[in-house]
């Protein structure tokens, strides 16, 4: 696995070294050229100085030079010279700088014509000495760049390590977390870049904790809900065994118990199917009004048994949805209205297109309003929780498992819609309004 720290240290150090060393090379070349010019100017000054001296002074001051040579010519006659040159001209008598080889060395030469005294002065300096002198000076400037690389490397290592420390701390905290430790990550004074990561991790941990808690509660509730009808069935079977004459009554109770359990299992299955991870997206255009008609027709008997008045109003309203899920949604809402509305009560169902107001997407709403027992507005936030049954006398007496509205909300969310609850227009009762994105006809 690639280490970010090693990568940063090596890549930064390599880049710095490459460009620093190339710059040093460029500096070396430029400095050498400048030194060459400096030496040439010095040679010119020396030449002019020699030119200004009287020949007698040459012998005293300049004869025994080693790294330098000179000759003074006047009409092809050698007037004076250093001891390290022959009697021949060092180089051709053309004014200017040049090079010559003698005494086993290469020399930088300058031919200078003194017009006042009508003399040629030739001066020469050993190139190897000039080069060596210049190089030694320049190397002194280059060496710190070379010797500084280990120090720069150490500094880069230190800086990168410091920079990555919070990331390492975060990684250590995550690594050292126990399996059941869902406490949030805490880093003292985290970097700006890490704040978002820590926030995301903590949100994830929080959601994970909530989900785990929900699952635990769900398992416990489901077990409890299943145990209740089973216990009742066991009692009834026991009664049947002890008193075979109570056959008809016990049979009806047994049948009711089995139906209750079947309902609970079906609701559990619906809940499972309506979770986002299990939902099989099979969306097709659906006329919600027509669907409401069909579901009402299916459940009509339940309403008739309680002499409830059921009204359906609306128009053709197309939405993109999953037929099976929407059927379940409507069945659950109608079943609730049927169960919690007393005999001779009224239930109004309306499906319609909502006039386009805010944006271009048309909206379709499904409203189910009843004159039932109603829900206290303070309990509105509770009713979508799983196995949540309101602590009311009428509710407790009504058969149910507390999963219906949870399933409804799942289905609404899967369709990208929203569900709202409000008091009904009757003296008592509840209105459920579900809002979907409609389809353009």
């Amino acid at each position, binding site marked *: 696995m690639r280490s970010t720290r090693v*990568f940063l240290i090596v890549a930064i150090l*390599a880049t710095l070294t490459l460009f620093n060393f190339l710059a040093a090379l460029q500096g070396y070349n430029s400095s050498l050229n400048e030194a060459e010019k400096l030496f040439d100017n010095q040679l010119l000054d020396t030449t002019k100085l020699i030119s200004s001296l009287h020949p007698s002074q040459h012998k005293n001051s300049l004869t025994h030079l080693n790294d330098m040579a000179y000759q003074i010519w006047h009409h092809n006659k050698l007037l004076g010279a250093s001891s390290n040159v022959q009697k021949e001209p060092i180089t051709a008598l053309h004014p200017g700088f040049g090079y010559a080889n003698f005494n086993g060395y290469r020399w930088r030469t300058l031919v200078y014509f003194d017009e006042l005294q009508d003399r040629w002065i030739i001066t020469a300096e050993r190139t190897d000495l000039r080069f060596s002198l210049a190089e030694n000076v320049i190397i002194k400037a280059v060496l710190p760049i070379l010797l500084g690389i280990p120090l720069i490397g150490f500094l880069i290592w230190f800086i990168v390590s410091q920079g990555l420390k919070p990331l390492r701390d975060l990684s250590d905290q995550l690594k050292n977390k126990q399996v059941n430790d869902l406490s949030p990550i805490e880093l003292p004074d985290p970097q700006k870049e890490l704040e978002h990561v820590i926030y995301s991790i903590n949100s994830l941990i929080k959601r994970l904790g909530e989900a785990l808690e929900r699952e635990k509660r769900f398992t416990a509730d489901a077990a409890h809900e299943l145990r209740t009808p089973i216990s009742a069935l066991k009692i009834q079977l026991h009664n049947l065994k002890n008193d075979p004459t109570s056959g008809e009554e016990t049979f009806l109770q047994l049948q009711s118990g089995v139906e209750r359990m079947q309902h609970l299992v079906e609701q559990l299955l619906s809940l499972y199917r309506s979770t986002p991870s299990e939902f099989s997206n099979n969306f097709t255009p659906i006329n919600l009004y027509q669907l409401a008609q069909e579901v009402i027709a299916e459940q009509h008997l339940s309403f008739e048994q309680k002499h409830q008045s059921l009204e359906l109003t609306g128009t053709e309203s197309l939405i993109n949805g999953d037929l099976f899920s929407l059927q379940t949604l409507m069945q659950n809402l109608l079943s609730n209205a049927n169960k919690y509305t007393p005999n001779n009560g009224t239930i109004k169902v309306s499906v319609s297109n909502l006039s386009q107001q805010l944006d271009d997407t048309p909206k379709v709403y499904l409203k189910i309003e009843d004159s039932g027992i109603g829900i206290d507005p303070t309990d509105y936030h509770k009713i979508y929780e799983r196995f949540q049954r309101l602590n009311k006398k009428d509710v407790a007496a009504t058969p149910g498992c507390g999963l219906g509205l949870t399933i409804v909300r799942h289905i609404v969310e899967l369709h990208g819609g929203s569900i709202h609850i409000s008091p009904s227009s009757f003296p008592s009762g509840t209105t459920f309004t579900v809002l979907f994105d409609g389809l353009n006809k």
Partner: protein
Amino acid sequence: MFLNSVVLVLQEALEAALLISVLLVFSKHYQIKPRWVLVSIGLGSMGALIFALNMALVSEWFDYVGQEVINALIQFSILFLLGLLVLSLSINNPFIKPNTNVIKSNLWIMVCMILLVCLAITREGSEIFIYIGGVINQPSYAQPTLAGSGIGAGIGISAGVLIYYGLLGVTRNKVTAISLSLLSLVGGNMASQAVLLLTQADWLPYSQILWDSSAQIPENSVIGHLLYALIGYEATPSLFQFSAYLGGISLILIFWLLGKLIDVPSTMALDAENTGY
């Protein structure tokens, strides 16, 4: 002295760094741990030192052309090993042939890589040792020589590191093509240098000079040396040298194509599964 040292060390270091970088990229993609580099650098440095210390003796071989002949032999060995490596890499390409016997092929690939780098460092390192050994005894040259060598080595190694990371950043489809192109250039360079050495040793006759680009890019300029290290640049290549260069490149590419045509036997794939790799 400074500039000479820079150029000589840079040329040798860059050549080795380029080879090591490309091989490291391959080893990364073939999931071979990079420790082999340390082994090969250690062995290569030892080889270079031994070779440099015995250079006087070696030079006397083959009628006093031992140095040229042995160097040419090393170059040809590198070319041959490069060919074998490329063939093996191509046969066992994990991106193309996933059912490869990873452990057997990777061991062979790793041995090839160690030998390659070891030989390259032996040859290039010996030249550096001989050069530094020759000038370091003169006190006035010591500082410029060491400084120049440091700068040259620094530039060469840094360029190698950046080439390595650059290649790692390239997508998998392109990295094989780029790495293979670089290896084929190294192969061409080796063949060309070997032919030049054998010509210098009079083992091969002189052939006609194909062109002269010394006016545009002199061989002894910094760019000339860099190009020599990267693509084996010669300002005045002979016909034999140029042919060897093209031959070296072709050899590597042919070995790669050959490897792509060879199917991995299914039994090997089963062996790999059974060994748990």
